[in-house]
């Protein structure tokens, strides 16, 4: 399961709502305790997709490398990626799956009418053929 703390969650939602109706993206840093991932820091990253960003996002590898360096410097791990689905449910799309990697948790935030609606987390498999859900928790206040 993956737990996201309040400051990280607030940043992720604010980033997603700010970029609406475009998709946002970013990295989640924290630590792993057995089967539990705890996100303690979220990093907003520029959506580098060069076309219309209402239904697409892309992370520059060098931005992800920078996030990993930031994590290591803080004694944290890069444990997940987040992005938003504007006016769309938080599911793992075919595009998401085909452009994913099996190493990280992928949190999808559904933003409807500019406001957060719901979220899910997924774990893509190595073959990029399926992405089962994983339990996701965040502060509900």
């Amino acid at each position: 399961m993956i737990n996201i703390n309040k400051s990280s969650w607030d940043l992720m939602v604010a980033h997603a709502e700010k970029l609406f109706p475009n998709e946002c993206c970013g990295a989640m840093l924290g630590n792993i305790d057995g089967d539990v991932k705890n996100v303690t820091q979220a990093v907003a990253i520029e959506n580098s997709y060069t076309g219309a960003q209402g239904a697409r996002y892309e992370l520059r590898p060098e931005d992800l490398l920078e996030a990993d360096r930031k994590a290591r410097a803080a004694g944290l791990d890069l444990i997940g990626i987040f992005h938003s689905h504007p006016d769309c449910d938080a599911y793992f799309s075919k595009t998401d799956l085909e452009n994913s990697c099996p190493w990280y948790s992928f949190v999808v935030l559904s933003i409807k009418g500019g406001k957060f609606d719901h979220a899910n987390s997924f774990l893509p498999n190595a073959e990029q053929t399926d992405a089962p859900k994983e339990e996701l928790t965040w502060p509900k206040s």
Partner: protein
Amino acid sequence: MAKVLIPTPLRQFADKKDSVELAGTTVAEVMAALTEQFPTLRKQLFTDEGKLRSFVNVYLNDEDIRYLKKDATPVAATDTLSIVPSIAGGAPAVGLAGGSL
């Protein structure tokens, strides 16, 4: 010995190490040394044909090796290699509620 930084999810295949020091004078030699020392990493990084998997990028310090000399890029003992995935995605106009695919 060049340093290779291991991404968090791959440390389970590398004796839980976050980095390893490996011998080699090119990217290909260092990556070969990496998968020789940790054979289960190979499937994570390479296809059955021995090519880097489509989502795997290798950086020599701050440079993507695709823009250098790829596998033949020279590596010095002071260099750091990073393994960085390509990640993208997006939602089509019509979504499916809640589930995966």
